[in-house]
């Protein structure tokens, strides 16, 4: 009955993951659409700029110059708004992934989401200042957004690293819990007179692999925590990412031990005890 409940849980979990994927792809598509829309506004802005520059050199009337200068301001306004929209959509895609991620520490999730929301709110505030802004005001806003975006780029890499670290931490924690239960099960089989030598050997190896994964995770966590500026973000993110992949590999190796452990435990538990535990692969 319990196995049935667990199987049902696995099906629900798989469906939830598919749903998460769909939602993330949608959010990513929204970012992509907004980014593409910003290309059109950029072209319109550049064209207006070119028209204005050409007119100046041709000594056109002041009235015409004023009209075209205003066109440049309006196109710049539209471009800046779209560019900020694309930035917001990017952060929303990241937020979507973190919100719907199933297996991560809730404290880590809340911390990361608060950071993303803070960035989105700041950008939305700047976007609201754009309508009706003078050319000078637009220059100020663009400078502020440029500086803030640089920080977001650093922060988003740091957050991505922290999300990955939190995810692998969850996986390692689960494997550790499994090791504790397996240990108790092996003891129980031993007390029942079963030969558990191979099981103990596999469990020891499983635990070593998980310990190695934990060590890689701790190092990765430190790398991501040390990200502080655009000068160190690329290197530290790459190093942290490599360590996360390393930790993942250790858990995968531990999983191979786990497959054998489960198979052997099932064999030893067969009521007839028809299987010779010492000769099974």
């Amino acid at each position, binding site marked *: 009955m319990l*196995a049935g409940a667990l199987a049902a849980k696995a099906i629900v979990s798989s469906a939830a993951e598919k749903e998460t994927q769909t939602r993330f792809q949608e959010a990513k598509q929204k970012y992509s659409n907004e980014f593409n829309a910003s290309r059109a506004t950029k072209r319109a802005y550049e064209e207006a700029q070119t028209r204005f520059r050409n007119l100046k050199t041709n000594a056109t009337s002041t009235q015409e110059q004023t009209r075209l200068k205003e066109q440049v301001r309006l196109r710049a306004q539209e471009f800046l708004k779209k560019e900020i929209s694309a930035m917001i959509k990017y952060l929303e895609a990241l937020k979507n992934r973190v919100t719907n991620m199933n297996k991560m520490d809730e404290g880590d999730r809340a911390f990361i989401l608060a950071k993303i929301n803070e960035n989105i709110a700041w950008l939305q505030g700047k976007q609201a200042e754009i309508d009706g802004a003078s050319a000078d005001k637009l220059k100020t806003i663009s400078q502020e957004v440029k500086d803030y975006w640089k920080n977001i780029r650093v922060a988003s*890499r740091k957050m991505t690293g922290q999300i990955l670290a939190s995810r692998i931490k969850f996986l390692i924690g689960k494997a550790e819990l499994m090791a504790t239960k397996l240990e108790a099960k092996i003891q129980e089989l031993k007390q029942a007179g079963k030969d558990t030598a191979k099981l103990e050997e596999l469990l020891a190896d499983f635990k070593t692999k998980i310990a190695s994964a934990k060590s890689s995770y701790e190092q990765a966590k430190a790398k991501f925590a040390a990200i502080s500026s655009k000068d160190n973000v690329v290197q530290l993110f790459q190093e942290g990412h490599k360590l996360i992949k390393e930790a993942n590999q250790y858990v995968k190796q531990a999983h191979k031990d*786990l497959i054998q452990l489960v198979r052997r435990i099932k064999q030893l538990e067969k009521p007839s005890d028809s299987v010779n535990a010492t000769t099974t692969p």
Partner: protein
Amino acid sequence: MRTKSFIFILLVLAAAAVVFYLVQTGVDMMPGTEETAGQKSTKPAIESASIGTFDTELEADLKSFDTDLFDLNNLANDASLNTIDSDMANFNL
């Protein structure tokens, strides 16, 4: 009479809810506390059905992690972000 029937239905529903909860949470069948060290338990200390799914459970978690790793890495390295960087750096009204 009506009240008695109502209470009876409530009790049945409460009992069903407890059974449902125990099945959903996969409660471990631990040996009774009254057992002494020398006694052999008649029930398994660790639920075998739960251990029997450990490998598939971890496998599913690993697959899910791989997807997250792929998605997040792609998002962090999206080439369009460099374009936004350069747009903002070159914005000159």
